């Protein structure tokens, strides 16, 4: 299972903060969106490559994931049955980074949301 406190890589964190500036969507919410978009794609995290979760924004797991916490954890476990704790968290962070890539430059909420539908 995911650890209780989680963080992202610094780059992603900056991107999310910027996105919040454009659209008003907070980093935790945009992280959730990014994760689900990524898990739906073919992208898979390779545990062999060490992923740096060096962001300064350390939040509770429940803050990060909200109502999607259960599903997120189940999806991760289902996708990566062998990973545990820290590695699982890195997988989550990696999915967020992958999922946000196509959204991070949306300049307003209307365009962002339209992109999601």
């Amino acid at each position, binding site marked *: 299972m995911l650890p209780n406190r989680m963080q992202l890589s610094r780059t992603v964190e900056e991107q999310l903060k910027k996105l919040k500036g454009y659209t*008003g*969507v*907070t980093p935790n*919410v945009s992280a*959730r*969106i990014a*994760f*689900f*978009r990524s*898990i*739906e794609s073919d992208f898979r995290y390779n545990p062999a490559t060490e992923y740096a979760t060096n962001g300064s924004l350390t939040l509770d797991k429940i803050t990060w994931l*909200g*109502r*999607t916490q*259960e*599903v997120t954890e*189940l*999806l991760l*476990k*289902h*996708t990566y*049955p062998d990973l545990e704790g820290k590695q699982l968290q890195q997988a989550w962070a990696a999915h967020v980074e992958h999922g946000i890539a196509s959204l991070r430059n949306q300049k307003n*909420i*209307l365009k962002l*949301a*339209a992109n*999601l*539908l």
Partner: protein
Amino acid sequence: MIFKKLIMQNFRVFNGKHSLDLQPKKDGLLSKPIILFGGLNGAGKTSILTAIRLLLLGRRALSFIPNNKEYADYLSQQLNNKAKKEDNSAKASISLEFTHTHQGKHGVFTINRTWGVDGKEKISFEHADENSNLTSEQIQTIISEMIPPGIGDLFFFDGEKIAELAEDDTGVYLKEAVQKLLGLDIIERLNIDLDIYLNKESEGKASATIQKEITDLQKQKESFKVEADAYKEQANELYPKITSLRFEMSQIEKSIQERGGAFAITRDEEKGKQKSLEREIDTIKGKVLHELDGAFPLSLAPNAVNRLFQQLAQEKELKAKQSFNEQFLAQTEKLATELSAALEADGAQVNELLKAYIVTNGGIRAESTISLDISDREFHQLESLRDDANESKAKLGNTLSELTAAESVLDSLTLRIQRAPDEKELVSLYERLRELDKAVAKEKEVYKDVLQKAQKSMTKALESAKRLEKLFNQQKNEKSLQKAVARVSSTQGALQEFSKKLTQLRVAQLEDLFALAYRKLARKEDLKLTAKINPETFDVALVDLDGMEINRKSLSAGEKQIFAFAILEALGKLSGKVLPVVVDTPLGRLDSKHRDKLIKHYFPEAGEQVILLSTDTEVDADFYSILQPEVSHAFEINFDETTRCSSVTEGYFWENQKAEIA
């Protein structure tokens, strides 16, 4: 002056209207001056005299000088009693038509006096050439010019009362009349006028400082004028400034109008709309964010989530099988025993059969593992979460289209606001307008101030000019005063001397005329008497042959009357005034000799027109026959005892009787 016609209406004993023709008739070249009225006592002879006196002398006709109320009372008493009784608003009126030469013009004049019970008199005066828009006072003045009040008594008199003239030794009676008749009063008046003139002249005594005051005032006046002119000039310069400011104001107002004053008004409204729209958009955005914050992200990974659910469903099934197998295996031994007993078979064999069944039929595929292991409750929660996610996706779609619509409205609104006049530009225009307004008000204030100053200076200059004029006049007075005093005093001296000489001359003439008249009227024994008149008191003294003065008080009533007639005749002749003579009861106190003289020598010669009011005992048949050649015509006044009123008919006592007999 000749009386032409006397009209009396409701006057004293005369009820109704009575018109008397008084004009003397002529017999060829001979004139007949006497108009004779015969009437018994109380018939109304005196009424006729009174009417003439009233008409010509006004209130001076009374023996005393009455005030307004006394005069009104007197007049109301002169209203005929019968007429008063019959009609409370009856009016008395008397009117006299006469010819006279007034101010060099000969003409016919009519005086009319009318009054009612209240005694309020209305005078009218008519003359062919003159406009009669005159007040009562003015009319009285004109009449007084024709017949001076002092003289009236000498021409229209009661023969009995005239004796008073003879008894008067104070001169009061005669003095005024004589002075007036002889024109001496004019000198007196001139003297008084000169005094008045001197007083007026010396009133404004000028002092030595006036000269200095005048120069000071002149300087002041000049400086004030210059000041006023300067202020006016300044005001004239200021005015164009105001005009140009006003012009600029009107230009600005025009340009504000051109830039769409109307839009400026709706601008605020649009801005309000914009704001509310922005708030709405914010709300919608909030909704979007809220949706994103919920279950929505699940909908982004439908396949992954489906696969997850397949897994979970498989695990659920697997778990159910495993628990059945466990329970079944736990029961197999007991089940095998019961089955072998019932079927009489080997217990161990049945047991093996059952176990083998589970393994083959209830077998669990090797690849199926329970990796996620969630409870049924959790599974159901996830299912509802997935439903929420789908629902949320639909909601988000709606919200987004809402947002798109709002934003497009906002866009067009913003565009309209952007097309509006630049607020900043308008603001600057308005500011400029306000500035100009203030400037105009200020300039106006200054302009007004300057104008007021100019006016003040002008007023001061005018005041100075007025004072200057006064001073000039004073100065003039001072210079002319010396001359005036000298001239007046010399004139007054000359006048005094003239007056003295004139009086002496007149008195001498009067003495001669009196002596002539007296001798004509007196009896033989008095013929040698001469008269001596005091030039100051005008008292007449009779002097006998020895030069002794005869005391007039010692004269009889008849003698006094003769004496008075003589004075009157002398005065009348000396004055040169040609006035009719009206005498009432002319012969009352006289003896036959004196009557004879009067009839023969006085009446025919007294004037061009002599109106005699006589009783039948005065001018009796004898006298009448003597008088007749001189009588123009005669009237008889009859008193009716029943109506207590009189009427006048032509003729004299005996004339009428003769006519009746004939």
